[in-house]
């Protein structure tokens, strides 16, 4: 039995990170060895760095790939004919897009993992789903962006999918009210990107035009706070505004990257930190790429996931900045790491004359 299947096909408490440390390390190491065997570029990297993967004993020692490599190169560890779909990053600042090559197994595993992570919030049953995005109907089935990937990924928890944003980028109140009338008396699922939720549910929505409030809603949102920083909106204000305006009190923020779809980090209601779970891990690295052991000290975020099997994305250095928070935090029962995201690493003034 493949190691990864011990995670996916067994009843497992996703919060019980402590008991899975060894399995986690072994599973990732096995994945890396397989990528080395099947992906020439990855093999070059390991060989040129002169790394002996089998000698490593801890996750901190494992090599990590710079996240932009998925923009620079086509990286996959499967036969070309087995490519099932290609995920693209939404690429806001950089022109080049990430390309994540999935085979059907990898795609399936992403869904299973995501289900296990999210089920503890939503329960096992599918809920009516309200989506604060435009309907991504007209998309190339093989190539789609991170946004669509996330919507489709989360759609496995929903039914009666209702896209509330029309082509003019406005809230379609008719559609919204129709949904609320039918479903809002019971638990329902709301999904949207943090920036869209801010734009539509906090800034634009007109309470006089809606049939009822959202007190039974469970909101999942992710995608970062970059656009909100300008308006001085942080997580706390965000939550209190949603509660004040719509009586929406269950608000779950997640952190994930398209390079590791499925193994997302969920923000804890009790301590407002992201927690690792059995599928993933986080390491903070300093200016010399050494792991930072102290709490609250900022550095670059490295994310690890057991899931990527069709492309070498198990251990990636991101361009985000964050820090580890004291692990013995209050009442939460999580045994993983707790961390916070600061945002993109600040751009240093580049000194040189290579382009205009």
């Amino acid at each position, binding site marked *: 039995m493949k190691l990864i299947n011990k995670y996916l096909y067994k009843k497992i408490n996703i919060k019980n990170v402590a008991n899975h440390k060894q399995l986690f390390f072994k599973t990732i190491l096995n994945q890396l060895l397989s990528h080395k065997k099947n992906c020439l*570029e990855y093999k070059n990297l390991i060989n*040129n760095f*002169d790394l002996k993967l089998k000698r490593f004993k801890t996750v901190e020692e494992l090599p990590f790939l710079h996240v932009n490599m998925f923009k620079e*190169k086509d990286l996959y560890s499967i036969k070309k004919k087995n490519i099932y779909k290609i995920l693209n990053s939404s690429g806001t600042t950089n022109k080049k897009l990430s390309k994540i090559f999935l085979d059907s197994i990898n795609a399936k595993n992403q869904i299973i993992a995501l289900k296990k992570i999210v089920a503890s919030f939503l329960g096992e049953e599918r809920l009516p789903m309200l989506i604060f995005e435009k309907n991504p109907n007209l998309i190339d089935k093989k190539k789609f962006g991170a946004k669509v990937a996330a919507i489709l990924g989360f759609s496995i928890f929903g039914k009666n999918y209702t896209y509330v944003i029309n082509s003019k980028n406005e809230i379609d109140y008719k559609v919204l009210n129709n949904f609320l009338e039918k479903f809002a008396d019971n638990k329902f699922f709301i999904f949207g990107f943090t920036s869209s939720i801010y734009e539509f549910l906090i800034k634009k929505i007109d309470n006089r035009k809606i049939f009822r409030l959202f007190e039974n809603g469970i909101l999942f949102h992710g995608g970062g706070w970059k656009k909100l920083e300008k308006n001085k909106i942080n997580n706390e204000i965000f939550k209190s505004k949603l509660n004040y305006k719509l009586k929406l009190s269950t608000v779950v923020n997640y952190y994930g990257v398209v390079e590791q779809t499925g193994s997302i980090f969920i923000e804890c209601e009790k301590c407002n930190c992201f927690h690792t779970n059995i599928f993933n891990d986080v390491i903070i690295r300093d200016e010399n790429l050494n792991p930072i052991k102290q709490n609250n000290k900022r550095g*670059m975020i490295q994310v690890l996931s057991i899931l990527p099997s069709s492309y070498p994305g198990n251990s990636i250095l991101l361009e985000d900045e964050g820090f580890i928070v004291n692990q013995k935090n209050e009442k939460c029962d999580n045994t993983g790491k707790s961390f916070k995201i600061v945002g993109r690493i*600040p751009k240093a003034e580049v000194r040189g*004359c*290579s382009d*205009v």
Partner: protein
Amino acid sequence: MTFDKSKIQYLIGSKNNKSDISEPFSDVNLEFLNELSLNIFKHKNSKKYKDLIAFAFWCRKKNIIKIKNNFLDKQFRLGLGIIFHLTPSNVPIAFMYSFIFGLLSGNSNIVRVSKPDLEQVKLLFSIIKKIFRIRKFEKLSQNNSFIYYDKDTNISDYFSSFVDGRVVWGNDKTIGDFKKMTTKSKCVDLFFGDKYSISLFSSKKLKKLNKIEFSNLIKNFYNDVFIMDQNACTSPHLIIWEKKPLKSIIEIFWNNLEKFVQDNYLTSLSITSKKYQILNNYLMENSDLRINKMNNKYIKRIKINKLDKNIINYRGFSGLFFEYEMKDILELNEIINRNFQTLSYFGYDKIFFEKIFKRNKFKGIDRIVPVGETLEMSLIWDGINVVNHLSRIVSIK
């Protein structure tokens, strides 16, 4: 050619560019530079910016007079008129060198600054404004302007249409765009494109250095590379050692550099990230590269076994070097083209290179300087005598 003229911000100087010309190295221009140098040194905030101090040092009276004396020929010269400058964005104050190219050649100038919001640029502008208010520099303030506009070919087109010369720093695409623009038939263009620089070291000479000489060499090499994060066109990316180098002294050299960098260089997460990305990229593309095993944090060395025709794409960043052991200097012939700019050297001398270059007629490399002098700006740039280009000879018989 339609665009909104309000998109052009005049940071210093007026919209009605007057074109006044003078002889190259006119007294008032020299005085202006001297005043500029003194005022930068005097300002309490200047010290924070190494590039600003280096600039002030460069344009001090003594140095400019030295440069002037090197240029004096018996011809009577005058500037061309108005020069438009499109300056590089990544060296914060490189635009000043471009401006001085135009000024010392006897011209009026319109300088497009790409990052006017940088602290050292703001500081510099406040100093220039102050000097421009002095009566004897009144004309300079009327004839020269520093402007900003968001990248916009229509605006560049507009300036190109009426000026007498253009100095454009940029990549192939930018230069290509500027070549397509309509200019006056007599307009003179200077294009400074992407360049590649290398270093040649003798390990045998390295071994003969005493302690002080050794640490001076380290400091000089550090300055060449790290002041500009190895991002200047003069920064070496490829380090060439002579045939059968002495391995142990080479390791000592890099170790000492590592220590010096550790003590003096301010890195950041974004610099580290970018460097790691570049490193990943090279290592993934090639099967036969080796990164040195030395556990250095700052200095990363990639050994290459063969000089590739595309070596110009092997660019380091912030202390990432490609190292090659050369069997014969003629190997350079295989790789050198017009995009090679500076060769800095240690352990050789002027005569050695004069001989080699006369004999072999390499198709590139415009400057050969000792290690430590790569960043020194000169009025001969990329093999072109800038003053001669931006002025005309009036022959009187």
